């Protein structure tokens, strides 16, 4: 038996294991990697762990956990064993996501123009018009190229049979792409020997692709658009990523106070006066973008930004109002949305979903709280959810009350046993930890998906929650050609 795997329990009867097949043998695309790992001693692993830790610390790759003492920064937990995705599986993901994002963009364009899909009663109109992310003010506004969702990061999981399913479409401000890039750097430092055996598709061009996309969507009248990144500030948990992407693209990282609007045009304040801005890759929520239009108490936004945007003098990526399409209730309609706009069957399936707003579903949800996962429609980051099998009776009762009070705001899904991947525990033993995958989709003149993504790992034993705010970690993700 291969070293480190002597005591590894894949539990393939319960879970889909990424590395070990049902027959108990390694899957072919992991062969060479396991062979390499078997040549390492525990001390080798520890030494490489140290290299990785120093790399992350020196780069300042830490994240802040809200609700803890101010200034508490943690290293983002990183697992040393990379995940391998064979080329044919990747092709399915790539095609499936391209189809899905194209359809969702067509959906957004429709919702903010003719609303045909509502008139055809494919989706109940009240679900859209009543959504807190629907921005009535933007009906009729035409973003350049008709694109709303320039940067997205869909969460993909695998069910017990290994089918790839989409769990969430993050169409507003998906984060984590810097970890995808840094994880690859860390692996190259720590395990250069692993890289000669595989043809790993490169991901390092992501920042260039992102910049190209952002330049393509600039206002038509501006030849060489000036792109900036807009961050909420250094206390945001994803601040590292905002500054990292700005640096990699070679553009300015701005905060709201760096920008000013005059005569419906946006400028940065510089030591030499004002400079025109054409495209803003914003990592600030809609609600904080412009105190004159949204939350008046916002200190992060720019007064007048929305008017400049409506006039077409500046492009925002992503557009305002995309949240209406990544709401967890709308999620359940995505297969219909694909069919409606593209006339195709979805390549990637959804996780079955019950809507509390639907009376018969509501009954089912309330009766099965102990086995379902219940999610608030508009929360992200693993907040506001109930994991039935891990919850107490009291928590279930609390949720039941909240669901009945506001059914539009809740959905339920079966507890999917996410696929598992062996991950190091104390650098000595391997455990099967649940994982997901978040590839990043860029949408400019074309749809581009850098081969790979962020594989998030629930490093707490048995935990199903992979969000970094909830103790999750990540690992490098390799798309390999044979």
């Amino acid at each position, binding site marked *: 038996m291969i070293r480190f795997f002597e005591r590894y329990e894949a539990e393939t009867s319960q879970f889909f294991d990424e590395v070990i097949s049902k027959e108990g043998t390694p899957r072919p695309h992991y062969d060479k990697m396991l062979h390499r790992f078997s040549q390492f001693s525990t001390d080798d692993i520890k030494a490489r762990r140290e290299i990785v830790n120093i790399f992350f610390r020196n780069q300042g790759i830490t994240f802040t956990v809200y609700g803890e003492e101010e200034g508490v920064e943690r290293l983002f937990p990183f697992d040393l064993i990379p995940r391998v995705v064979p080329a044919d599986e990747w092709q399915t993901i790539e095609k499936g996501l391209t189809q899905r994002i194209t359809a969702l963009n067509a959906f957004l364009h429709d919702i903010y123009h003719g609303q045909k899909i509502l008139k055809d009663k494919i989706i109940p109109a009240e679900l859209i018009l009543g959504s807190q992310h629907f921005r009535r003010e933007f009906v009729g506004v035409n973003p350049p190229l008709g694109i709303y969702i320039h940067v997205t990061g869909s969460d993909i999981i695998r069910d017990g049979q290994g089918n790839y399913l989409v769990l969430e479409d993050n169409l507003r401000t998906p984060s984590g792409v810097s970890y995808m890039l840094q994880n690859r750097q860390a692996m190259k430092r720590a395990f250069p020997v692993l890289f000669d055996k595989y043809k790993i598709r490169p991901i390092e061009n992501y920042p260039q692709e992102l910049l190209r996309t952002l330049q393509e969507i600039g206002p038509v009248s501006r030849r060489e658009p000036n792109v900036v990144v807009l961050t909420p*500030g250094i206390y945001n948990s994803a601040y590292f990523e905002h500054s990292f992407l700005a640096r990699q693209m070679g553009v300015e990282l701005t905060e709201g106070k760096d920008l000013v609007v005059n005569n419906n045009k946006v400028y940065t304040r510089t030591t030499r006066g004002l400079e025109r801005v054409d495209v803003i890759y914003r990592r*600030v929520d809609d609600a904080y973008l412009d105190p004159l239009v949204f939350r008046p108490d916002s200190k992060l936004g720019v007064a007048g930004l929305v008017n400049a945007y409506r006039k077409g003098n500046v492009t925002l990526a992503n557009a305002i109002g995309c949240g209406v399409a990544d709401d967890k209730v709308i999620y359940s309609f995505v297969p219909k949305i694909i069919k409606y706009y593209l006339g195709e069957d979805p390549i990637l399936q959804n996780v079955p979903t019950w809507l509390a707003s639907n009376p018969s579903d509501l009954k089912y949800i309330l009766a099965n709280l102990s086995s379902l996962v219940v999610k608030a429609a508009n929360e992200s980051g693993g907040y506001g959810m109930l994991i039935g099998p891990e919850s107490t009776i009291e928590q279930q009762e609390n949720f039941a009350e909240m669901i009945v009070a506001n059914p539009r705001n809740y959905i339920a899904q079966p507890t999917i046993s996410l696929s598992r991947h062996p991950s190091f525990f104390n650098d000595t033993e391997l455990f099967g930890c649940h994982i997901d995958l978040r590839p990043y989709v860029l949408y400019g003149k074309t749809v581009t998906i850098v081969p790979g993504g962020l594989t998030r790992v629930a490093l707490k034993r048995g935990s199903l929650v992979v969000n970094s705010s909830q103790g999750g970690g990540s690992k490098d993700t390799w798309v390999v050609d044979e």
Partner: protein
Amino acid sequence: MLSRVAESLFWMSRYFERAENTARFLDVNFNLLLDLNKITHIENPSYWVALILVTSDKERFNSLYDEYSARTVTDYLVFNKSNPNSITSCIGLARENARSIIESISSEMWEQVNNLYHYLQNVTPQFVQNDPYGFYKEIKNASHLFQGITDNTFSHNEGWDFIQIAKYLERTDNIARLIDVKYHMLLSEAQSQPELVAGSEDIIQWMAVLKSCSALEAFRKVYLSKIDPDNILRFLILDRTFPRSINFSVCAAEDALWRISGSSRHRYVNNADRLIGKLEAELSYTAIEDIFSKGLHHYLEDLEQRLVKVGEQVHLTYFAYHTPEIESSDIEEALPFTGVAGGRANWSQAQQHQQQQ
């Protein structure tokens, strides 16, 4: 360059320089007391109170500690987090400013600030007590390394000039304070114990002032004969070639300001340039006798206030988030002049915590 980026470069540099100067004061004080241990002992409060006077926040110190001793003053100036000028606070603030512009500085600069920050997290009072010399040397060297890294990995353009302005304004201010306090102390001693001032202890004290500016050897080369207070003041205030003299530092700040704005002698384009130019010109034509006739204390106090004015003008000219042509003047007053970790950053902290998907 974004105004915010320029401002953070400025404060990153300024806090780093402040930490180095505090380390210098403390280091020299230890050495001084070892030299003087025949006539006093290391816990003599009058030697420690001077350090608190240099940083001029006696009230805050008194609210935290009961006595002036090696232990309390070291704790206050090295570790205390409620003292914004302690070495730990300064490096924390320098790092916070660096972090807010991490995409604009070189990664080597970031690593150096970050390393020193993590080093300080692990230093204990016991460690400093056991090897004060080693600890302060570490801080000074870290600051020199940071400056060297900056000079060699960061483009010498506008941003670098803001770093220079901050460094030299801070340094000028610190030298002025140091001289002021030492002179004050020696003067009051002279009144109470006239026999001491004439003696070797006085010389030792003045040598300590020179040493804290790394100036003893340079001074010796200029004034071979005699270490006397007049010559020391002449050197620390008026020398144009020594990098820790007031005149040198003011010239360096002036050069940097003029490079940014394109000003030149006899032709200034903003108030910051005008004020620093005036200060530099006066220094160039000042003799030590002029200073004495005005009174050293008054002279230094005036100098410190003028430095503050220069800082204010740099802020208004380059950093203030206020564009008069666009925003009417009734918007809130310019925010406090303290860099990223001062009053400005905290008000929006809660909103910055918005969840990312």
